[in-house]
């Protein structure tokens, strides 16, 4: 069964460093998303991507964040200068046109020290 994959599973970085989180969505899906979950809190939406551009973003997704789909298969989230409060689980999700069911990857645990 096709699934969303994410790498790395765990990333530790120092404050101020850049990180790139990688995702391979399900191959025939058209919509791509990043969410995050800070420990003990809700899963929160960051950004959605469709037709090679950002379709929607939340207040969390500020200028320090960017997304790319560089080669038609990978979908990346870059945090330019990490802060302590960026420590969270980051989930990638993808969805086809119909049905509207988003499938999530296993997540990357980002720890900023």
């Amino acid at each position: 069964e096709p699934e969303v994959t994410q790498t790395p599973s765990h990333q530790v970085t120092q404050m101020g460093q850049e990180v790139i989180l990688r995702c391979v969505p399900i191959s025939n899906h058209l919509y791509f998303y990043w969410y995050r979950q800070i420990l003990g809190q809700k899963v929160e939406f960051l950004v959605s991507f469709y037709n090679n551009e950002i379709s929607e973003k939340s207040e969390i997704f500020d200028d320090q964040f960017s997304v790319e789909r560089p080669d038609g298969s990978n979908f990346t989230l870059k945090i330019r200068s990490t802060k302590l409060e960026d420590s969270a689980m980051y989930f990638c999700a993808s969805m086809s046109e119909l049905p509207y069911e988003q499938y999530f990857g296993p997540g990357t645990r980002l720890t900023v020290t």
Partner: protein
Amino acid sequence: DQQVKQNSPSLSVQEGRISILNCDYTNSMFDYFLWYKKYPAEGPTFLISISSIKDKNEDGRFTVFLNKSAKHLSLHIVPSQPGDSAVYFCAASSLGNTPLVFGKGTRLSVIA
């Protein structure tokens, strides 16, 4: 601003009995609702969904009920099994392909 609320942080049920997980929402623009199951250190796993034109959707042991007038949905698991023990998230979207808004989750423990 909790647009999707799961008011029970935890629920314990005996194996073989029914588990009922509840979810309320405030945004009347939501028209698509999903339930996800999550184990520790894993991503949310899609379980079942329902669109606002229906009031019930069933898939095996899982049934979701939607009461639009009350802005309430529930997930029924019958019979409950120990492997169902996980955190269950309710999520909602409008127009189907918009971002999901999640509830805080309910931790279900099924006791053998």
